């Protein structure tokens, strides 16, 4: 499995550096995008020093961890957005013929190295939060933060997989999975600012709270129960999205020309 992942990653990298100008532009722009998001958050924090009782350090940590999770999703799981194209172009068949889980094959078919720029800036932001007294300081805390960010990436993957699978129903390439890019902005804020019904959604159905808010509470305030919630949210959303994908494939997929 590790060898397959490595080979896929190398193939992706090779195919990406052929278009080197686009590749370099994408890495630079993705990094800049995270810098601009950080600046916008700072403009807001200049007017509102405390958000739901959380100071600048906490909010920047939430931002950094969300961006880290998103950048990891962008690097490793972004190909879940291609399901619509695979179905429309009849390419899904080849994933079904090989002796490996189709979801894993879809992931391996397209890593995206463009996310490196965003990943670097996100790590810098978490380090900045540590400097403000809220982020990880020791090696073990950094390892913990990395694991939690990976859980966040898996949550973003679950959301994008579920939404992209709906293209089996809508029968278009139009990508609902792109919604992940819009809603991740709101994972940067404490989920306590949302009204009850929306808080229930971001804590369970679309668990954005497990990407930024809970991880920040766990790392900065050592609230251990948050780690349990993160693991539960990751496992349940992954299981749910895989079930939805498999069910939609079983019921709606009609091979080439769906």
């Amino acid at each position, binding site marked *: 499995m590790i060898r397959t992942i490595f080979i896929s990653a190398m193939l992706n990298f090779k195919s990406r550096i052929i278009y080197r100008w686009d590749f370099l*532009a*994408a890495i630079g722009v993705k990094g800049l995008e995270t810098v601009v998001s950080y600046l916008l958050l700072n*403009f807001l924090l200049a007017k509102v020093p405390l958000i739901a009782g959380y100071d600048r350090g906490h909010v920047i940590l939430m931002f950094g961890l969300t961006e880290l999770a998103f950048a990891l999703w962008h690097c490793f799981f972004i190909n879940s957005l291609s399901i619509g194209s695979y179905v429309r172009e009849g390419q899904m068949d080849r994933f079904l013929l090989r002796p490996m889980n189709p979801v894993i094959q879809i992931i391996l078919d397209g890593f995206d190295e463009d996310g490196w720029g965003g990943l670097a800036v996100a790590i810098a932001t978490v380090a900045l939060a540590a400097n403000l007294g809220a982020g990880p300081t020791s090696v073990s805390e950094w390892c913990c933060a990395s694991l939690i960010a990976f859980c966040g990436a898996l949550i973003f993957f679950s959301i994008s997989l579920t*939404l992209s699978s709906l*293209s089996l129903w809508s029968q278009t390439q*139009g990508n609902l999975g792109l919604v992940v890019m*819009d*809603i991740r902005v*709101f994972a940067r804020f404490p989920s306590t600012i*949302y009204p009850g019904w929306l808080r229930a959604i971001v804590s369970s159905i679309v668990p954005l709270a497990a990407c930024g808010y809970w991880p920040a509470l766990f790392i900065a305030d050592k609230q251990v129960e948050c780690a349990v919630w993160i693991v539960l949210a990751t496992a349940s959303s992954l299981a749910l999205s895989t079930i939805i994908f498999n069910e939609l494939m079983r019921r709606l997929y009609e091979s080439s020309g769906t």
Partner: protein
Amino acid sequence: MIAPKKISLRWMVFADTALSYWRIGWKQSWIYRRNTLLSLIGAILALALQLAVWAFLTKDGSLGGYSKHSSTAYFTMMYLLGIVLSPGCDIWLSRRIINGDIVLDMLKPQNPLFFVPFEQLSANLHRLLIGGLPVMAGLALLYGFSLSPSRILAVMPVMTLSYVFWVAMEFCLGSACFRTNAYWGVASLKSLLLMLLTGRLLPLEFYPNWLAASLDKNPFAIAYYHVARGALGLDSGRTLLSVTFWQLLFAAAACWLAMIFWNTGLRKLHTQGG
């Protein structure tokens, strides 16, 4: 006796082709209505989260000049503008270049640069009718803000010019694909510009004064920030007139640039093949 002035055949052909493209866009949106519906649900979820954040931030009164009601109205307008001002000509062009189908477009007697926007515009208006306006009406009833027809009419010229600017800019970005043979790097640039310059995520009042002053008259801020404020009656008539004039200049410059990029790209295609 004075003979009635005849409409030039060239213009009639133009109008007829534009109408055909319009119909194609409309039919496609209708055929793939499930997709339209799903993408609207996604956009509504993002809007609900945005409104919830601002409702919380403004719960103790005004923030940066925005109350709970005015921030709701502002971000709802941004949501509507996001639906209208997303022609997607860059995606269309880059796909055609990468697949090599652009050669087929060159066989047509008319330049696709002038007609594709009509197809995209009808798709945008379809989405606006299905999901944009009902959401706007619902929120207007809920929060008690209104859009007067006179204010909508006042922003129509600048909105139309913004659409032209946006289409031209997307053709400029899409034409980069003639050089790079890939598109995602350039597409990221568009989302960066949208994030920083339009005021979609954060109104310009929250930016530091020097930055807000220098970004105030950029074509992206005019397309979003000033159109939204104009429609809500937050910008004066004089400001609207001024931004309309500026947007006219920006749209003309962007169209000129798009033509240059397009022709340079085609020249490369003629020389090196697709």
